[in-house]
């Protein structure tokens, strides 16, 4: 819904940003990122990939070693954090323990020298927004994790910033609560139309919430695209492996014809795959999603022998681990429906997939 229109583009811009803490290693290497106004952008990546560092540079608590960061067209490298007007939700919530919930929320308004009645009004509205109206008099320590999270959220929003940064805000919550909060944050974002930069290392969180996801690895953005693109059209093997479940096969590209690559696998057999990120004569990693593999379907070029190694019953589907082209970790999802044949471990069967569902990526 909130895809960027042209006028809003470039609300937050990272322009060739680099960051080093110790002068030896670059933690962020050449970061280029355009975030549109009203967008929900998630930075996703493994631990230590530099997500928090990027957020901190944007908030002003770290300075970029090289490059420009622009907010609404203005370079902000020299603007101190308190003048940037960016709301922030921290992983541990950072609710001030010596203030009540109400005082916590009033704090950003107070430092803006807002009058008392206006302040109370806004605090009340912000608390109602997260259904925490009757908790204004409590201390943060008297709240549950989920409640603290909501307060932190409404505190970051109460002064109506244009941009809100969230650094793994749901990291400390249990799975169920986390999922509920994901929806609440998502709905708040839709209602208020603020720009959100969200950091997580939970891929399902990233996929459910975001307009666009930037996958970080080793200080670089590996891929920046919408959640469905990220899952269905990964551009390199890191993203394919990191997002969702993935089957890997590796081999040598022997030819590329009209976008379809011929790959000779390490065990000698040949398969054809969509040439996404590979060159003729070089090695490539093929990526196939488990649900795109069919059992006993119509024969095609990629049909091959498979030996069932293990079956895991998961209710609606059965995870079937098999040996395909010598890869013993090859997983196939078999729908648990009436029409399907029931497999047994040790059994031999035929599997196949379409060439366009198999992506030939970098090695």
């Amino acid at each position, binding site marked *: 819904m909130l895809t960027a229109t042209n006028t809003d583009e470039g609300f937050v811009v990272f322009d060739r940003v680099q960051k080093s803490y110790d002068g030896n290693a670059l933690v962020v290497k050449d970061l280029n990122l355009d975030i549109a106004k009203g967008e929900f952008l998630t930075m996703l990546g493994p631990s230590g990939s530099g997500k928090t560092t990027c957020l901190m540079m944007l*908030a*002003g*608590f770290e300075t970029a070693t090289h490059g420009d960061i622009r907010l609404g067209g203005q370079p902000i490298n020299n603007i*101190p*954090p*308190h*003048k*940037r*007007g*960016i*709301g*922030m939700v*921290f*992983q*541990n919530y*950072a609710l*001030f*323990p*010596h203030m009540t919930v109400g005082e916590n929320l009033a*704090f*950003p308004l107070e*430092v*803006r020298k807002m009058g008392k009645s206006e302040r109370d009004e806004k605090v009340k509205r912000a608390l109602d927004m997260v259904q925490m109206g009757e908790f204004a008099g409590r201390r943060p320590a008297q709240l549950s994790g989920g409640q603290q999270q909501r307060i932190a959220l409404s*505190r*970051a929003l109460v*002064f109506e910033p244009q941009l809100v*940064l969230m650094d793994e805000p749901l990291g400390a919550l249990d799975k169920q609560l986390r999922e509920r909060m994901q929806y609440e944050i998502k709905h708040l974002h839709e209602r208020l139309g603020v720009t959100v930069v969200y950091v997580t290392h939970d891929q399902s969180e990233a996929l459910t919430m975001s307009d666009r996801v930037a996958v970080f690895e080793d200080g670089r953005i590996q891929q920046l695209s919408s959640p469905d693109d990220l899952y269905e059209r990964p551009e390199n093997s890191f993203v394919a492996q990191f997002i969702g479940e993935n089957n890997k096969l590796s081999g040598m590209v022997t030819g590329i014809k009209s976008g379809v690559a011929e790959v000779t696998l390490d065990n000698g057999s040949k398969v054809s795959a969509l040439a996404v990120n590979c060159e003729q004569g070089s090695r490539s990693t093929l990526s196939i999603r488990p649900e795109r593999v069919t059992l006993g379907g119509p024969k095609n070029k990629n049909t091959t022998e498979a030996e069932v190694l293990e079956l895991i019953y998961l209710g609606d589907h059965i995870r079937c681990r098999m040996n395909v082209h010598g890869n013993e970790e090859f997983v196939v999802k078999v729908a648990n429906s009436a029409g399907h044949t029931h497999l047994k471990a040790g059994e031999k069967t035929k599997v196949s997939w379409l060439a366009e569902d198999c992506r030939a990526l970098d090695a």
Partner: protein
Amino acid sequence: MTDTSAPIVTADGTPLKKKLDQAMFRSRRNAFLLVAPLLAFIIASFIIPIVVLLTQGVYDSSFRKQMPTVATFVADWDGQGEPSEEMMQAALTDIVVGLTIDRSIPTKAAVRINREVSGATSMIKKLIRATGKWKIEYEGKEQRLSDVFRNMEDEDDSGVTLLDESERRAIGVTLAKAVIAQEAPVKAKMIKADKKWADIKYWQAMKVASKAASPAYLAAALDYNYSHDGEFQQRDEDRRIHVKLFWRTLEISLIVTLACLFLGYPIAYLLSTLSVRSSNLLLILVLLPFWTSLLVRTTAWIAMLQAQGVMNDLFVVFGLAADDDRFSLIYNKTGTLIAMTHILLPFMILPLYSVMKTIPPSYVRAAKSMGATNWTAFWRVYFPQSVAGIGAGALLVFILAIGYYITPALVGGQDGQMISNMIDFHMRKSLNWNLAAALGMVLLVFVLFLFWIYDRVVGIDNMKLG
């Protein structure tokens, strides 16, 4: 809902509550057994000595033992009018008996009276000298009283005690009776020996001294006189020393606490923000003073601060002081303040550091992200969370400072002395342990009072020591 009136029972039928009590008792007993050795040690080495010493501040039965006859006599006396012949005889009896038992007893009694009114020592000494010349029939021959006492042997040649105390007392009583029988009336003779015997105020002093449990020492510790008729009177302006000293102790302790806070807070903050490696190094520097003896550090300050010392030399070099008019930085209050601040600084830094270390940087960041300036973020968010450390550090430094003793003794000169130096003086020099105990008691009550105020204002639960 279950019926609450019926007791819940465990599987074997005993009521749950009883079972729980048994389990609780066992765990409490185990906990007690674990601390029992330490408890015994503390009781024996700390609590009992303190209680014993402190009681001396309000309980002193020495005079009663030294001059029992006088003590019983003055107890019923109304403290008015001329001293009577009976009183004089009682005093003479006690002195003779005292001298027979141990020749130092009357002098000790004199010291006790002297604490209430000066001049009592000479009064008794003169009487002993005068009566010593009196002749008395003893062991079959006429001899001077002083010789009787001198010849009363303590031990035979092989070291066996010849007479025990009760035997001596019996001898003393016979002797006293004989003396009085021979010399009565004694009043005039005693007044002749020293006319102070006629002065009623010495007898009133003996009346005060004869009370074992009395607030006399406590009154003295607060610069009051406790008179024989049970009234308190403030001492003359020039004899009020203790209250002034208590105030000065309080003043020095407060200044030192504040100075430690102002010097220590930024250091602790720095320590808590640095990386582990550099903060450890800095922490070692902070702790370094603990590795040198207190005495060495204090004497180092003498070398630094004295008139010809390093600091003054620097002042002269930079033209801040004239060579012949150097600052007096030591042997006065300034010296005490400087040296004590330095010595107590780690006690402020460590609790502050341990509290600040636990304040995540995200709080200040959150405050700044919400628009607070550096100062507002510090004052409204960081500082309130460090109050626990300030409370702990300040209380620690203050309580250590209020009882500080070696440093003021070495660098304090006259006006840098504190109450503990006075206590020390009475413990070791004047040997007035009772007054020392009374001063200690006042100090203790004072500290407990401050502690109570602290608890009311800051709350002791808010204190974090580490």
